[in-house]
Protein backbone atom coordinates (compact mmCIF):
# COMPACT_ATOMS: atom_id res chain seq x y z
CA UNK A 1 0.00 0.00 0.00
CA UNK A 2 1.30 3.49 -0.82
CA UNK A 3 2.23 5.77 2.10
CA UNK A 4 -0.65 8.23 1.71
CA UNK A 5 -3.20 5.45 1.38
CA UNK A 6 -1.87 3.81 4.50
CA UNK A 7 -2.28 7.05 6.47
CA UNK A 8 -5.90 7.47 5.40
CA UNK A 9 -6.60 3.83 6.21
CA UNK A 10 -5.25 4.40 9.72
CA UNK A 11 -7.31 7.61 10.02
CA UNK A 12 -10.46 5.68 9.09
CA UNK A 13 -9.61 2.94 11.61
CA UNK A 14 -9.10 5.57 14.32
CA UNK A 15 -12.53 7.05 13.62
CA UNK A 16 -14.20 3.63 13.80
CA UNK A 17 -12.25 2.76 16.96
CA UNK A 18 -13.23 6.08 18.56
CA UNK A 19 -16.95 5.49 18.13
CA UNK A 20 -16.64 1.80 19.00
CA UNK A 21 -14.95 2.66 22.31
CA UNK A 22 -17.02 5.72 23.19
CA UNK A 23 -20.46 4.79 21.83
CA UNK A 24 -20.32 1.01 21.30
CA UNK A 25 -18.66 0.14 24.60
CA UNK A 26 -19.74 3.34 26.36
CA UNK A 27 -16.29 3.90 27.88
CA UNK A 28 -16.59 7.69 27.85
CA UNK A 29 -13.61 9.52 29.33
CA UNK A 30 -11.72 6.27 29.91
CA UNK A 31 -11.06 5.94 26.18
CA UNK A 32 -8.71 8.34 24.38
CA UNK A 33 -10.05 10.94 21.96
CA UNK A 34 -9.05 9.00 18.85
CA UNK A 35 -11.18 11.28 16.67
CA UNK A 36 -8.86 14.20 17.45
CA UNK A 37 -5.81 11.99 16.86
CA UNK A 38 -7.28 10.99 13.47
CA UNK A 39 -7.95 14.63 12.61
CA UNK A 40 -4.47 15.77 13.60
CA UNK A 41 -2.82 12.94 11.67
CA UNK A 42 -5.07 13.51 8.64
CA UNK A 43 -4.60 17.28 8.71
CA UNK A 44 -0.84 16.89 8.26
CA UNK A 45 -1.49 14.81 5.14
CA UNK A 46 -3.70 17.23 3.26
CA UNK A 47 -4.23 20.90 2.55
CA UNK A 48 -6.07 23.47 4.64
CA UNK A 49 -9.48 23.38 2.93
CA UNK A 50 -9.61 19.59 2.85
CA UNK A 51 -8.48 19.38 6.48
CA UNK A 52 -11.23 21.82 7.47
CA UNK A 53 -13.76 19.62 5.66
CA UNK A 54 -12.39 16.58 7.48
CA UNK A 55 -12.74 18.38 10.81
CA UNK A 56 -16.26 19.47 9.89
CA UNK A 57 -17.29 15.87 9.18
CA UNK A 58 -15.67 14.52 12.34
CA UNK A 59 -17.21 17.28 14.42
CA UNK A 60 -20.70 16.59 13.09
CA UNK A 61 -20.34 12.90 13.98
CA UNK A 62 -19.19 13.77 17.49
CA UNK A 63 -22.05 16.25 17.88
CA UNK A 64 -24.70 13.67 16.96
CA UNK A 65 -25.00 12.73 20.63
CA UNK A 66 -24.87 16.26 21.99
CA UNK A 67 -28.31 17.76 22.51
CA UNK A 68 -27.46 21.00 24.27
CA UNK A 69 -24.21 21.95 22.56
CA UNK A 70 -24.78 20.67 19.03
CA UNK A 71 -22.30 22.35 16.67
CA UNK A 72 -19.65 23.01 19.32
CA UNK A 73 -17.55 20.02 18.27
CA UNK A 74 -18.10 20.88 14.60
CA UNK A 75 -16.74 24.41 15.01
CA UNK A 76 -13.84 23.23 17.17
CA UNK A 77 -12.73 20.40 14.90
CA UNK A 78 -13.11 22.41 11.68
CA UNK A 79 -10.77 25.08 13.02
CA UNK A 80 -8.34 22.53 14.48
CA UNK A 81 -8.28 20.64 11.17
CA UNK A 82 -7.49 23.79 9.18
CA UNK A 83 -4.88 24.87 11.73
CA UNK A 84 -3.29 21.41 11.73
CA UNK A 85 -2.82 21.54 7.96
CA UNK A 86 -1.43 25.06 8.25
CA UNK A 87 1.30 23.85 10.63
CA UNK A 88 2.83 21.90 7.73
CA UNK A 89 3.93 25.20 6.25
CA UNK A 90 5.49 26.29 9.53
CA UNK A 91 7.01 23.15 11.07
CA UNK A 92 8.66 20.05 9.70
CA UNK A 93 7.12 17.17 11.58
CA UNK A 94 10.01 14.80 11.94
CA UNK A 95 10.87 15.07 15.61
CA UNK A 96 9.35 13.48 18.70
CA UNK A 97 9.20 16.84 20.47
CA UNK A 98 7.24 18.36 17.61
CA UNK A 99 4.88 15.38 17.44
CA UNK A 100 4.12 15.42 21.17
CA UNK A 101 3.64 19.20 21.14
CA UNK A 102 1.45 19.02 18.03
CA UNK A 103 -0.84 16.36 19.49
CA UNK A 104 -0.96 17.96 22.95
CA UNK A 105 -1.68 21.48 21.70
CA UNK A 106 -4.08 20.22 19.02
CA UNK A 107 -6.20 18.44 21.62
CA UNK A 108 -6.01 21.31 24.13
CA UNK A 109 -6.99 23.90 21.52
CA UNK A 110 -9.83 21.64 20.39
CA UNK A 111 -11.08 21.47 24.00
CA UNK A 112 -10.67 25.24 24.36
CA UNK A 113 -12.74 25.93 21.22
CA UNK A 114 -15.33 23.35 22.31
CA UNK A 115 -15.55 24.98 25.75
CA UNK A 116 -16.02 28.42 24.19
CA UNK A 117 -18.66 27.15 21.73
CA UNK A 118 -20.65 25.24 24.36
CA UNK A 119 -22.13 28.29 26.01
CA UNK A 120 -22.18 29.11 29.69
CA UNK A 121 -25.05 26.86 30.70
CA UNK A 122 -23.52 23.55 29.68
CA UNK A 123 -19.86 23.89 30.59
CA UNK A 124 -17.70 23.50 33.67
CA UNK A 125 -15.47 26.28 35.01
CA UNK A 126 -12.46 27.36 32.93
CA UNK A 127 -9.99 26.21 35.56
CA UNK A 128 -11.57 22.79 35.96
CA UNK A 129 -12.20 22.15 32.26
CA UNK A 130 -9.16 23.65 30.58
CA UNK A 131 -6.42 23.94 33.17
CA UNK A 132 -6.99 20.62 34.97
CA UNK A 133 -9.06 18.27 32.80
CA UNK A 134 -7.98 19.24 29.29
CA UNK A 135 -4.19 18.95 29.85
CA UNK A 136 -4.64 15.41 31.17
CA UNK A 137 -6.73 14.45 28.15
CA UNK A 138 -4.23 16.21 25.86
CA UNK A 139 -1.37 14.21 27.38
CA UNK A 140 -3.41 11.02 26.82
CA UNK A 141 -3.94 12.02 23.17
CA UNK A 142 -0.25 12.88 22.77
CA UNK A 143 0.79 9.42 23.97
CA UNK A 144 -1.71 7.71 21.68
CA UNK A 145 -0.69 10.00 18.81
CA UNK A 146 2.96 9.04 19.19
CA UNK A 147 1.99 5.36 19.09
CA UNK A 148 -0.13 5.90 15.97
CA UNK A 149 2.66 7.76 14.18
CA UNK A 150 5.11 5.04 15.22
CA UNK A 151 2.78 2.51 13.60
CA UNK A 152 2.63 4.65 10.48
CA UNK A 153 6.42 4.89 10.39
CA UNK A 154 7.65 6.33 7.11
CA UNK A 155 4.13 6.92 5.85
CA UNK A 156 3.68 9.98 8.13
CA UNK A 157 3.48 13.18 6.06
CA UNK A 158 3.66 12.04 2.48
CA UNK A 159 2.22 15.18 0.88
CA UNK A 160 4.90 17.41 -0.50
Amino acid at each position, binding site marked *: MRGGGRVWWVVAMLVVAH*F*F*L*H*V*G*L*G*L*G*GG*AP*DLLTVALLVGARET*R*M*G*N*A*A*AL*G*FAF*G*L*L*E*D*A*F*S*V*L*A*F*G*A*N*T*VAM*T*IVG*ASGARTRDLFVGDSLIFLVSYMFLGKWVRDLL*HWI*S*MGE*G*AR*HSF*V*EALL*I*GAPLEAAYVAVVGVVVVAVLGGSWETVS
Partner: protein
Amino acid sequence: MPPFSGELGEVRGRGQLYGMVTMVGLALIVWSSGPATKQRIAAFLRQTVLRPFVLTQQGIAQARVNAATADLLQTAVDSLEAELINQRTLREENAQLRTLLALSERLGDNFVAASVLRAGTAGSESILILDAGAPQGIQVNAPIIASGGLLGVVREVRDRTSIGVDWSNPDFRAAAMTEDASVSGFIEARQRVFGDLDRLLLNGVPFHQQLEPGTQIVTSGLGGVFPRGIPIGVVDSEAESRAGWLRAYWLRPVVNPGEVTHALVSLGPTGGGGLETAFDSGADSLSGNNGDPDDGLPRNGGVR
Protein backbone atom coordinates in the same frame (compact mmCIF):
# COMPACT_ATOMS: atom_id res chain seq x y z
CA MET B 1 -0.36 27.71 -22.08
CA PRO B 2 -0.18 25.90 -18.73
CA PRO B 3 0.64 28.14 -15.79
CA PHE B 4 4.05 28.07 -14.15
CA SER B 5 4.30 25.80 -11.13
CA GLY B 6 4.47 28.77 -8.74
CA GLU B 7 1.36 30.27 -10.33
CA LEU B 8 -0.42 26.91 -10.11
CA GLY B 9 0.52 26.58 -6.45
CA GLU B 10 -0.86 30.04 -5.76
CA VAL B 11 -4.19 29.16 -7.42
CA ARG B 12 -4.39 25.92 -5.41
CA GLY B 13 -3.50 27.77 -2.22
CA ARG B 14 -6.24 30.32 -2.83
CA GLY B 15 -8.72 27.51 -3.49
CA GLN B 16 -7.75 25.81 -0.23
CA LEU B 17 -8.17 29.12 1.62
CA TYR B 18 -11.65 29.57 0.17
CA GLY B 19 -12.42 25.96 1.04
CA MET B 20 -11.29 26.50 4.62
CA VAL B 21 -13.35 29.68 4.98
CA THR B 22 -16.37 27.87 3.53
CA MET B 23 -16.07 24.95 5.96
CA VAL B 24 -15.64 27.25 8.97
CA GLY B 25 -18.68 29.21 7.75
CA LEU B 26 -20.68 25.98 7.43
CA ALA B 27 -19.61 24.93 10.92
CA LEU B 28 -20.78 28.28 12.32
CA ILE B 29 -24.10 27.93 10.47
CA VAL B 30 -24.60 24.45 11.98
CA TRP B 31 -23.62 25.75 15.42
CA SER B 32 -26.03 28.70 15.25
CA SER B 33 -28.94 26.88 13.57
CA GLY B 34 -32.23 26.30 15.34
CA PRO B 35 -32.93 23.36 17.66
CA ALA B 36 -35.17 21.63 15.10
CA THR B 37 -32.46 21.67 12.43
CA LYS B 38 -29.87 20.43 14.92
CA GLN B 39 -32.16 17.61 16.01
CA ARG B 40 -32.75 16.55 12.40
CA ILE B 41 -29.04 16.47 11.60
CA ALA B 42 -28.18 14.62 14.81
CA ALA B 43 -30.98 12.11 14.35
CA PHE B 44 -29.94 11.47 10.75
CA LEU B 45 -26.34 10.77 11.79
CA ARG B 46 -27.40 8.55 14.70
CA GLN B 47 -29.70 6.52 12.46
CA THR B 48 -27.22 6.12 9.60
CA VAL B 49 -23.46 6.39 10.07
CA LEU B 50 -23.46 5.90 13.84
CA ARG B 51 -26.24 3.30 14.01
CA PRO B 52 -23.85 0.29 14.15
CA PHE B 53 -22.17 1.75 17.24
CA VAL B 54 -25.50 2.40 18.97
CA LEU B 55 -26.61 -1.15 18.13
CA THR B 56 -23.33 -2.48 19.52
CA GLN B 57 -23.96 -0.75 22.84
CA GLN B 58 -27.55 -1.99 22.87
CA GLY B 59 -26.32 -5.53 22.29
CA ILE B 60 -23.71 -5.28 25.02
CA ALA B 61 -26.20 -3.77 27.45
CA GLN B 62 -28.68 -6.52 26.67
CA ALA B 63 -26.04 -9.21 27.17
CA ARG B 64 -25.07 -7.64 30.50
CA VAL B 65 -28.68 -7.60 31.61
CA ASN B 66 -29.16 -11.19 30.48
CA ALA B 67 -26.17 -12.28 32.51
CA ALA B 68 -27.26 -10.29 35.55
CA THR B 69 -30.79 -11.61 35.50
CA ALA B 70 -29.93 -15.26 34.88
CA ASP B 71 -30.16 -16.04 38.59
CA LEU B 72 -33.39 -14.13 38.84
CA LEU B 73 -34.87 -16.06 35.93
CA GLN B 74 -33.71 -19.34 37.45
CA THR B 75 -35.44 -18.37 40.67
CA ALA B 76 -38.56 -17.59 38.71
CA VAL B 77 -38.46 -20.93 36.93
CA ASP B 78 -37.93 -22.76 40.23
CA SER B 79 -40.81 -20.88 41.74
CA LEU B 80 -43.04 -21.72 38.82
CA GLU B 81 -42.15 -25.37 39.01
CA ALA B 82 -42.87 -25.38 42.70
CA GLU B 83 -46.18 -23.72 42.04
CA LEU B 84 -47.10 -26.29 39.40
CA ILE B 85 -46.20 -29.11 41.74
CA ASN B 86 -48.40 -27.63 44.38
CA GLN B 87 -51.22 -27.38 41.82
CA ARG B 88 -51.76 -23.71 42.39
CA THR B 89 -53.94 -21.83 40.01
CA LEU B 90 -52.57 -20.09 36.91
CA ARG B 91 -53.57 -16.77 38.39
CA GLU B 92 -51.36 -17.37 41.40
CA GLU B 93 -48.42 -18.30 39.22
CA ASN B 94 -48.91 -15.13 37.25
CA ALA B 95 -48.93 -13.10 40.44
CA GLN B 96 -45.67 -14.79 41.47
CA LEU B 97 -44.01 -13.73 38.25
CA ARG B 98 -45.32 -10.22 38.56
CA THR B 99 -43.63 -9.81 41.90
CA LEU B 100 -40.34 -10.02 39.99
CA LEU B 101 -41.37 -6.93 38.12
CA ALA B 102 -41.97 -5.14 41.38
CA LEU B 103 -41.88 -1.55 40.29
CA SER B 104 -43.62 -2.08 36.95
CA GLU B 105 -46.57 -3.66 38.70
CA ARG B 106 -46.88 -0.90 41.22
CA LEU B 107 -46.73 1.77 38.56
CA GLY B 108 -49.37 0.09 36.41
CA ASP B 109 -49.49 -0.33 32.65
CA ASN B 110 -48.85 3.28 31.79
CA PHE B 111 -45.08 2.85 31.54
CA VAL B 112 -42.77 1.22 29.03
CA ALA B 113 -39.43 -0.37 29.96
CA ALA B 114 -36.33 0.75 28.07
CA SER B 115 -32.61 0.10 28.16
CA VAL B 116 -30.55 3.17 29.02
CA LEU B 117 -27.46 3.71 26.87
CA ARG B 118 -24.74 6.35 27.07
CA ALA B 119 -23.00 7.91 24.07
CA GLY B 120 -19.74 8.65 25.87
CA THR B 121 -18.74 11.40 23.45
CA ALA B 122 -17.73 14.97 24.26
CA GLY B 123 -20.75 17.10 25.20
CA SER B 124 -23.08 14.14 25.79
CA GLU B 125 -22.38 13.66 29.50
CA SER B 126 -25.97 13.92 30.70
CA ILE B 127 -27.64 12.50 27.60
CA LEU B 128 -29.47 9.15 27.69
CA ILE B 129 -30.30 7.00 24.70
CA LEU B 130 -33.39 4.84 25.25
CA ASP B 131 -34.06 1.82 23.04
CA ALA B 132 -37.77 2.62 22.77
CA GLY B 133 -39.39 5.30 20.67
CA ALA B 134 -42.58 6.55 19.09
CA PRO B 135 -44.00 3.06 18.26
CA GLN B 136 -43.94 2.23 21.98
CA GLY B 137 -45.91 5.41 22.73
CA ILE B 138 -43.10 7.52 24.14
CA GLN B 139 -43.61 11.26 23.82
CA VAL B 140 -41.40 14.31 24.29
CA ASN B 141 -41.22 15.43 27.95
CA ALA B 142 -42.14 11.96 29.22
CA PRO B 143 -40.61 11.29 32.66
CA ILE B 144 -37.88 8.65 32.87
CA ILE B 145 -37.99 6.72 36.14
CA ALA B 146 -35.49 4.29 37.64
CA SER B 147 -36.33 1.98 40.51
CA GLY B 148 -35.13 4.47 43.13
CA GLY B 149 -36.92 7.48 41.70
CA LEU B 150 -36.70 10.19 39.07
CA LEU B 151 -33.94 9.81 36.48
CA GLY B 152 -34.73 12.41 33.81
CA VAL B 153 -37.00 13.44 30.98
CA VAL B 154 -37.32 12.59 27.27
CA ARG B 155 -36.21 15.31 24.86
CA GLU B 156 -36.44 13.67 21.41
CA VAL B 157 -38.47 10.73 20.14
CA ARG B 158 -37.61 8.76 17.02
CA ASP B 159 -38.75 5.51 15.44
CA ARG B 160 -36.45 3.17 17.31
CA THR B 161 -34.85 5.30 19.98
CA SER B 162 -35.49 8.26 22.21
CA ILE B 163 -33.05 10.80 23.56
CA GLY B 164 -33.43 12.03 27.10
CA VAL B 165 -31.51 14.04 29.65
CA ASP B 166 -30.89 12.95 33.23
CA TRP B 167 -31.22 15.17 36.27
CA SER B 168 -27.55 16.22 36.07
CA ASN B 169 -28.30 18.22 32.91
CA PRO B 170 -28.07 21.99 33.55
CA ASP B 171 -31.49 22.46 31.92
CA PHE B 172 -33.24 19.96 34.18
CA ARG B 173 -36.02 21.38 36.37
CA ALA B 174 -38.78 19.72 38.39
CA ALA B 175 -41.38 20.94 40.85
CA ALA B 176 -40.82 19.21 44.18
CA MET B 177 -42.14 18.87 47.70
CA THR B 178 -41.68 16.90 50.88
CA GLU B 179 -43.55 13.60 51.10
CA ASP B 180 -46.27 15.13 53.28
CA ALA B 181 -46.56 18.07 50.84
CA SER B 182 -45.93 20.58 53.64
CA VAL B 183 -42.97 22.22 51.88
CA SER B 184 -42.57 22.77 48.16
CA GLY B 185 -39.96 24.23 45.85
CA PHE B 186 -38.28 23.40 42.58
CA ILE B 187 -35.34 21.21 41.74
CA GLU B 188 -32.38 22.23 39.60
CA ALA B 189 -29.07 20.53 38.84
CA ARG B 190 -25.81 22.06 39.92
CA GLN B 191 -22.67 20.93 38.14
CA ARG B 192 -19.97 19.41 40.20
CA VAL B 193 -17.01 21.25 41.52
CA PHE B 194 -13.87 19.33 40.58
CA GLY B 195 -13.71 15.97 42.32
CA ASP B 196 -17.27 16.20 43.56
CA LEU B 197 -20.45 14.63 42.20
CA ASP B 198 -23.26 16.47 40.43
CA ARG B 199 -25.81 17.60 42.95
CA LEU B 200 -29.41 18.68 43.06
CA LEU B 201 -30.58 21.89 44.62
CA LEU B 202 -34.05 22.31 46.13
CA ASN B 203 -34.71 26.00 45.59
CA GLY B 204 -37.54 28.35 46.43
CA VAL B 205 -38.35 26.98 49.89
CA PRO B 206 -40.08 29.65 52.02
CA PHE B 207 -37.70 31.03 54.64
CA HIS B 208 -39.89 30.11 57.63
CA GLN B 209 -39.89 26.43 56.63
CA GLN B 210 -36.76 24.49 57.51
CA LEU B 211 -36.01 20.96 56.42
CA GLU B 212 -34.17 18.35 58.44
CA PRO B 213 -31.28 16.52 56.77
CA GLY B 214 -32.60 13.21 55.48
CA THR B 215 -36.05 14.49 54.56
CA GLN B 216 -37.30 12.77 51.43
CA ILE B 217 -38.14 15.06 48.50
CA VAL B 218 -40.55 13.92 45.77
CA THR B 219 -42.07 15.43 42.66
CA SER B 220 -45.10 17.59 43.37
CA GLY B 221 -46.83 17.14 40.01
CA LEU B 222 -46.98 20.89 39.38
CA GLY B 223 -46.41 21.78 35.75
CA GLY B 224 -47.79 18.48 34.52
CA VAL B 225 -44.49 16.99 33.34
CA PHE B 226 -43.71 14.68 36.27
CA PRO B 227 -46.39 12.71 38.11
CA ARG B 228 -46.72 13.49 41.81
CA GLY B 229 -44.80 11.37 44.26
CA ILE B 230 -41.65 10.25 42.41
CA PRO B 231 -38.67 10.29 44.81
CA ILE B 232 -35.94 12.74 43.80
CA GLY B 233 -33.55 12.82 46.72
CA VAL B 234 -33.05 13.41 50.41
CA VAL B 235 -32.05 16.69 52.00
CA ASP B 236 -28.33 16.82 52.68
CA SER B 237 -27.69 20.31 54.02
CA GLU B 238 -28.84 23.89 53.66
CA ALA B 239 -27.22 25.60 50.67
CA GLU B 240 -28.19 29.21 51.19
CA SER B 241 -30.86 31.54 52.48
CA ARG B 242 -31.69 34.72 50.63
CA ALA B 243 -32.27 37.86 52.66
CA GLY B 244 -34.84 36.24 54.91
CA TRP B 245 -37.11 35.25 52.02
CA LEU B 246 -36.11 31.91 50.60
CA ARG B 247 -34.01 28.91 51.51
CA ALA B 248 -32.24 26.38 49.27
CA TYR B 249 -31.11 22.89 50.20
CA TRP B 250 -28.58 20.49 48.71
CA LEU B 251 -30.14 17.12 47.95
CA ARG B 252 -28.54 13.69 47.83
CA PRO B 253 -30.18 12.18 44.70
CA VAL B 254 -31.78 8.76 45.10
CA VAL B 255 -30.78 7.79 41.56
CA ASN B 256 -27.20 7.83 40.29
CA PRO B 257 -27.59 8.28 36.51
CA GLY B 258 -24.29 6.57 35.76
CA GLU B 259 -25.46 3.31 37.32
CA VAL B 260 -28.82 3.07 35.57
CA THR B 261 -29.05 0.49 32.79
CA HIS B 262 -32.83 0.14 32.59
CA ALA B 263 -35.64 2.56 33.27
CA LEU B 264 -39.36 3.06 32.83
CA VAL B 265 -40.74 5.81 30.63
CA SER B 266 -44.17 7.25 31.35
CA LEU B 267 -46.67 7.00 28.50
CA GLY B 268 -49.03 9.65 29.83
CA PRO B 269 -50.94 10.70 32.94
CA THR B 270 -51.14 7.97 35.59
CA GLY B 271 -54.61 6.58 36.08
CA GLY B 272 -54.68 6.99 39.81
CA GLY B 273 -53.05 10.42 39.85
CA GLY B 274 -49.82 10.32 41.84
CA LEU B 275 -47.20 7.63 42.40
CA GLU B 276 -46.89 8.07 46.13
CA THR B 277 -47.44 4.37 46.83
CA ALA B 278 -45.32 3.01 43.99
CA PHE B 279 -41.92 3.63 45.54
CA ASP B 280 -41.44 1.67 48.71
CA SER B 281 -38.51 -0.20 50.19
CA GLY B 282 -39.02 -3.17 47.88
CA ALA B 283 -38.45 -1.35 44.65
CA ASP B 284 -35.02 -2.76 43.90
CA SER B 285 -35.65 -4.80 40.79
CA LEU B 286 -33.99 -2.32 38.45
CA SER B 287 -30.45 -1.14 38.74
CA GLY B 288 -29.57 2.40 39.65
CA ASN B 289 -31.09 2.58 43.09
CA ASN B 290 -28.55 3.92 45.53
CA GLY B 291 -31.15 4.84 48.08
CA ASP B 292 -30.98 2.63 51.14
CA PRO B 293 -34.46 1.84 52.44
CA ASP B 294 -33.02 0.98 55.83
CA ASP B 295 -30.83 4.02 56.21
CA GLY B 296 -32.87 5.31 59.13
CA LEU B 297 -33.69 8.56 57.41
CA PRO B 298 -37.10 10.13 57.94
CA ARG B 299 -39.50 9.29 55.07
CA ASN B 300 -42.40 11.55 55.89
CA GLY B 301 -42.26 15.15 56.83
CA GLY B 302 -39.04 16.16 58.46
CA VAL B 303 -40.07 19.78 58.60
CA ARG B 304 -38.84 21.79 61.48
